[in-house]
């Protein structure tokens, strides 16, 4: 898998509940992409004032027409960059790099899988579900959001999953509460063997805890796709790091764009997000307090 940079033609920008979905002709990205990978999109144009790429997990890809494959990603307008994206129209061009990052690892043998999504973080779970079902896996889904209009992909989920549980913070759809409130019951009921999750960090931490404590503490593997703030997406800027325990047991400040965004949940030092654990490789005592040093 070699990422490519393409000037992609926008095919459509659609409103999907509280979110927007953009489809771009991105030959070379679409053909290589696997579930869990993401694209990094430049915003603001060649001469614009916003330099940092915006990273979006890939919702779905398609082989279409004579132009090559298309890539679809989901976003919400959260600032000037996403507002610019929302203003793109068909035939406009966007500069897109992908596919980036490590995809979700799939079970080698058919397994019972629960897929958990928070808000539009659920986007990559649908292509993951297709891949799992092709391998003979059972797929059950839990989708959660703050409000009903922020649930992403509810219809898709109902169509493809053996069962779907919904939660909303305000109770406007499904059960009132968080995905981690209903997840223990779903794991027990479906006799799940693997959990996949994508969404806000707090949700991923809770899902990891539930999966680890399932079956009376025996636990099952959980793969999470993190949403860390990125600047480049390709591994050179070192801003998207989080403390992750390696195979050798050593904690490193690890790039979520290259080594992630998919990690095994219990490898992430959830209690140290936004910090450098004192036992991390190369940790410096002075950084436990706010530093004042020049670069």
């Amino acid at each position, binding site marked *: 898998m070699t990422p490519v940079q393409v000037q992609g033609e926008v095919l459509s920008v659609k409103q999907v509940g509280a979110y927007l979905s953009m489809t771009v002709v991105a030959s070379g990205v679409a053909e290589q992409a696997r579930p869990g990978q993401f694209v990094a999109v430049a915003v603001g144009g060649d001469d614009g004032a*916003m330099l940092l790429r915006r990273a979006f997990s890939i919702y779905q890809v398609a082989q279409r027409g004579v132009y090559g494959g298309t890539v679809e990603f989901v976003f919400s307008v959260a600032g000037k960059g996403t507002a610019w994206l929302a203003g793109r129209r068909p035939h406009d061009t966007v500069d897109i790099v992908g596919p980036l990052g490590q995809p979700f690892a799939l079970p080698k043998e058919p397994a019972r899988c629960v897929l958990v999504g928070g808000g539009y973080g659920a986007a990559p779970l649908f292509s993951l579900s297709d891949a799992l079902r092709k391998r003979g896996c059972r797929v059950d889904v839990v989708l959660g959001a703050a409000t009903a209009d922020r649930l992403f992909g509810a219809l898709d989920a109902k169509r493809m999953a053996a069962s779907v549980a919904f939660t909303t913070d305000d109770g406007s759809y499904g059960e009132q509460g968080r995905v981690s409130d209903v997840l223990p019951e779903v794991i027990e009921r479906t006799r799940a063997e693997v959990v996949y999750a994508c969404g806000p960090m707090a949700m991923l931490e809770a899902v990891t805890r539930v999966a680890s404590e399932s079956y009376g503490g025996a636990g099952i593997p959980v793969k999470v796709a993190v949403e860390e*703030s990125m*600047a480049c997406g390709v591994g050179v*800027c070192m801003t998207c790091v989080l403390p992750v325990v390696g195979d050798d047991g050593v904690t490193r400040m690890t790039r979520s764009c290259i080594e992630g965004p998919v990690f095994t949940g219990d490898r992430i030092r959830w209690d140290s997000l936004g910090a*450098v654990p004192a036992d991390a490789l190369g940790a410096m005592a002075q950084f436990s307090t706010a530093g004042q040093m020049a670069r």
Partner: protein
Amino acid sequence: MGDVQIRTSADATPAADVDMSTSLGRLDVPDPVFTASGCAAAGRELAPFNDLSALGGVVTKSIQVDPRSGRPTPRMAETPSGMLNSIGLQGPGIDAFLAKDLRWLADNDVRAAVSIAGGSVEEYARLAGRLRGQPVALIEVNISCPNVEDRGHVFACDPNAAAAVVAAVKRNAPTSVPVFAKLSPDVTDIVAVAQSCVDAGADGLSLINTTLGVSIDTVTMRPTLAGITGGLSGPAIRPLAVRCVWQVHAALPDVPLMGIGGIRTGTDALEFVLAGASAVQVGTVIFNDPSAPSRISAELRTALAARGFERLRDAIGLAHRPPAIRVPEEADPLGDEQPEPDPVRRHVSFDDASTVTFEAERRRDNASNVTVNEGNEGD
């Protein structure tokens, strides 16, 4: 540079005709575009987007004696036409760097400009010594680091401390490898630091490093960065960087310079070359466009061709030439004699009672160079 013919029209000679080679001390490179330290990791991640071996080289992320975790997150804040970063020099340490990163660069025929950073003069010296016998094209000394032996004062902000680092690196580095000191713009007199580094043996200078900034998150009403202060980079600092290159080239015209600061296009790179840079480094813009180094190299070649240059070298420092002399339409019929220019007035008074003072200075080619010696007179 006096015999260069400058065409202002865009009737370009074929771009391929421009000789892009340049010299950085003993190092000759076929292309003047490098990646900037901290913006390309150790090169490998940019290989899908650039022919790295065709570039001048890759300046690696600053390497230190030991592995370093860097700072907590958030480490980055987007700012208008730029960004603030406080990465904290996360890196693998010199051992892993030599074994993996430098090896990869050599195996792929990429010229490695190794950036080194330390907390003491002794650390810089050790790092330089470790580069003996290694496939290193150039050493860039990142002196924008706090000196742990001097209450954290940054080496780059003190001419004596900067010189001590450069001298120690020169003593220990392989003799055939040029040593460049990378200067900080956060000083009162960058020429003084430049002179000090050159006197200590620096073969050239890279300028500039980031300039310190702070961003406040108005939602949390706290600093955006975990490290509070961050280095500002990107096109927002380009005029600051061009000014530094201009001043240092004017003072030290024989010292090769690498120009760094918000280069986004080939004409941005040309600005630095005209200001006196023998080579340029592309940094923050890589985050926006991972293929920027190769693109900017091609654009610079086209921009030089469009201006009638056959060699990049002929453009270096050219903006320092004296102002063009206008020949009147009804010139001397013989046409081969330049009319005497009017004497330059040193004091010009305007009807709003302001006065602009000009100062003529002698340059090495004995041409008279007139510079406006008044800061911030624009609107």
